[in-house]
C-alpha cells in the first residue's frame, strides 16, 4: 500500500469552511473516549502512532466508565484508563466534534484539479473555541444514547433516563431518600435500580416491558453463551433491596404538578399507580451514527457498516463499539483494539510499517467480538419492544421536547421530513436525537438526516474564527 502523505499535505484551500484558527495534526484521530476509543487509541499509540482523542466529556471513560475519581471504577476500567494514560495518545477532553469531512471531498467541491489529497478534517468545540484536527485515519467510537419513548407526563421534572440517572449519579447527583420507579426495557434497568438502591434511594418497582416468556428464552440463551451473566443478573436482583422486578409491565403515564408525583403502570390487563419522586425510564440504546453519516460511511438498519477490521465504507475511516451495533463493553474493547491495530498497519510514514497484531491476538479479539454480538442478538430478541407502547402518546403528548411538538400536530404527516416542514419536529438543538428514534418506533419514519453542526456550536466555531481576544460573550 502506498504511504499516506502527512496530514500537513492537505491543502488549506481544500478545507471548507476556511479556518483562521489553529489545526492540530495527527496520524490517527479517535472520536470518543469510551472503552472502544480508549482501546483503539491505546493500541495505535503504543505502536508509535501519533494519536489524538476527542471526547465531549470532562474525563475519559464514556458512559460505562464515567467517573469522578478513578477509585470508584472497577479494576478493569482502571487498568484500561492507566494503559491509555501511558500509551502516549493525546486526549482532548471537553471537545465536542461538530463537523467532519474528507479532504478529497472538500478538494473536489472546491473544483481543484490534480491528485486529490488524502486524510480527514474534524472540527470540535472546546470551551467555546474552535479546534480543527487533520488526520490520516479516523476511528469513530461515538457510543450510543438511550431510546426514550414518549408517554403522557414524560416531560415532567424528575423524569430521567435510566442511563441518564446513572450518568447523573456518577457526576455527583444524589437520589438518596427519594422514592424511585425504574421502568422501560433492557438489562440496564436492574443495574441502575441496584445503583440507586445502594445510594440510599427507595426503589419501589423496576418495571420491564418484555414478557416473562421472552426473558426466560433469553436466560436459556445466556446459559449457553455466557453463564457468568446469570450470576451477575442474580446479584443485581438482590442488590435491589425490597424493590419488585415487575416483568411484562410498563408505564402508561406520569402525573404531577411541578414534578412527577405518581406513575401509572399496567401489565396489559390491570393498571395501578405508584407514588414516586423520581421516574427513570429508557427503552434500550440507539447507536450514535451521525458523525459516520457525515463522513459518508454506509449505515444499515441504524448501524455503521464495518468489515472484519472495523473499516467503514469510507477508506481510512474505522468504527468501533456501539455505533456498529449495541453489543456492550467487551465487544467495544475488542473492536477498538482491532481498529487501532489495523489503523497502525495502514498508516504512518513509509519505513515504519505497523502491524495488525499477532495472529493469536487477532483470534482472541475476533472470538470475543463474535461471542458478544451473539449475546447482543439474544438480548435484542428478549427485549423486543411491545406494540402497546406505540399507543401511549395521546394527541397532546409532546414528542419533540426541543420544539414542544405533540403527537396531534404531526398526525397528518406521513414522513419525518414532512412532519418537520409542518411542525419543526426534530429541528431543535438535539437534532432529532431524542424524537427521531421515537418516531421511528412509533410511526416507522426513517431517514432523519444529519446536518452541520452535529451538536449546537458557536457561530465562530463553525466559521473558523477562533483564537480572537474577547471572543467570549
Amino acid at each position, binding site marked *: 500500500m502506498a504511504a499516506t502523505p502527512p496530514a500537513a499535505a492537505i491543502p488549506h484551500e481544500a478545507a471548507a469552511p476556511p479556518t483562521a484558527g489553529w489545526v492540530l495534526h495527527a496520524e490517527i484521530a479517535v472520536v470518543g473516549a469510551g472503552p472502544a476509543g480508549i482501546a483503539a487509541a491505546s493500541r495505535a499509540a503504543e505502536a508509535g502512532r501519533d494519536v489524538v482523542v476527542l471526547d*465531549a466529556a470532562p474525563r475519559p471513560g464514556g458512559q460505562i466508565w464515567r467517573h469522578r475519581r478513578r477509585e470508584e471504577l472497577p479494576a478493569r476500567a482502571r487498568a484500561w484508563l492507566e494503559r491509555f494514560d501511558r500509551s502516549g495518545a493525546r486526549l482532548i477532553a471537553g471537545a465536542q466534534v461538530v463537523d467532519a469531512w474528507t479532504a478529497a471531498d472538500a478538494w473536489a467541491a472546491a473544483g481543484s484539479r490534480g491528485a486529490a489529497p488524502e486524510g480527514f478534517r474534524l472540527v470540535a468545540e472546546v470551551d467555546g473555541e474552535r479546534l480543527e484536527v487533520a488526520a490520516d485515519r479516523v476511528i469513530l467510537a461515538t457510543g450510543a444514547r438511550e431510546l426514550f419513548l414518549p408517554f403522557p407526563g414524560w416531560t415532567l421534572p424528575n423524569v430521567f433516563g435510566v442511563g441518564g440517572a446513572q*450518568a447523573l449519579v456518577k457526576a455527583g447527583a444524589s437520589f438518596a431518600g427519594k422514592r424511585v420507579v425504574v421502568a422501560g426495557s433492557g438489562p440496564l434497568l436492574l443495574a441502575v435500580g441496584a445503583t440507586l438502591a445502594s445510594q440510599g434511594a427507595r426503589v419501589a418497582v423496576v418495571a420491564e416491558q418484555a414478557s416473562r416468556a421472552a426473558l426466560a428464552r433469553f436466560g436459556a440463551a445466556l446459559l449457553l453463551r455466557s453463564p457468568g451473566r446469570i450470576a451477575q443478573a442474580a446479584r443485581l436482583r438482590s442488590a435491589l433491596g425490597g424493590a419488585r422486578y415487575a416483568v411484562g409491565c410498563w408505564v402508561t403515564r406520569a402525573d404531577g404538578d*411541578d414534578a412527577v408525583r405518581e406513575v401509572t403502570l399496567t401489565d396489559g390487563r390491570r393498571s395501578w399507580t405508584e407514588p414516586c419522586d423520581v421516574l427513570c425510564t429508557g427503552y434500550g440504546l440507539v447507536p450514535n451514527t451521525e458523525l459516520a453519516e457525515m463522513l459518508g460511511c454506509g449505515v444499515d438498519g441504524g448501524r455503521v457498516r464495518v468489515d472484519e477490521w472495523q473499516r467503514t465504507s469510507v477508506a481510512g475511516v474505522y468504527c468501533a463499539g456501539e455505533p456498529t451495533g449495541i453489543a456492550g463493553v467487551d465487544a467495544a474493547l475488542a473492536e477498538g483494539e482491532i481498529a487501532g491495530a489495523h489503523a497502525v498497519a495502514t498508516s504512518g510514514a513509509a519505513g515504519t510499517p505497523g502491524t495488525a497484531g499477532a495472529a493469536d491476538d487477532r483470534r482472541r479479539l475476533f472470538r470475543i467480538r463474535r461471542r458478544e454480538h451473539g449475546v447482543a442478538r439474544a438480548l435484542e430478541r428478549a427485549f423486543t419492544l411491545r406494540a402497546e407502547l406505540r399507543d401511549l402518546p395521546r394527541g397532546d403528548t409532546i414528542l419533540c421536547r426541543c420544539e414542544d411538538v405533540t403527537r396531534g400536530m404531526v398526525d397528518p404527516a406521513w414522513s419525518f421530513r414532512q412532519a418537520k416542514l409542518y411542525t419543526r419536529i426534530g429541528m431543535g438543538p438535539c437534532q432529532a436525537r431524542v424524537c427521531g428514534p421515537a418516531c421511528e418506533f412509533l410511526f416507522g419514519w426513517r431517514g432523519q438526516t444529519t446536518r452541520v453542526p452535529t451538536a449546537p456550536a458557536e457561530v465562530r466555531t463553525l466559521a473558523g474564527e477562533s483564537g480572537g481576544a474577547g471572543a467570549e460573550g
Partner: protein
Amino acid sequence: MDTTHTEVEIEVDGRAFRVPADATVAAVLLDLGVGAFRRSVTGEPRLPLCGMGTCQECRVTIDGVAHRRACMTPVRAGMKVSTDG
C-alpha cells in the same frame, strides 16, 4: 490529588453555594433542588433527561454564555450559573 472533600463556591441564580469540586453543574443543580433548568418553548419547566450531552434539556447560562449543557460542564470556583427555575 485527592478531591474527595474538596468544595468550591459557585453562584446559582444569584445565591452562593459550596458544592463538590468534582461534580458537574447538572448534578449540583439537581442536589440544590432547582425546579427548572430551562423553560421549554411553551414554558414548561425542564430538567435533564439523558445526563450525557444528547438531549439538550439541561441547558443553562454559565458565566454569561447561554445554552451551555450543565451535564457536560464541571463546576469551577467562582462560576455563575443562571437557570429558568
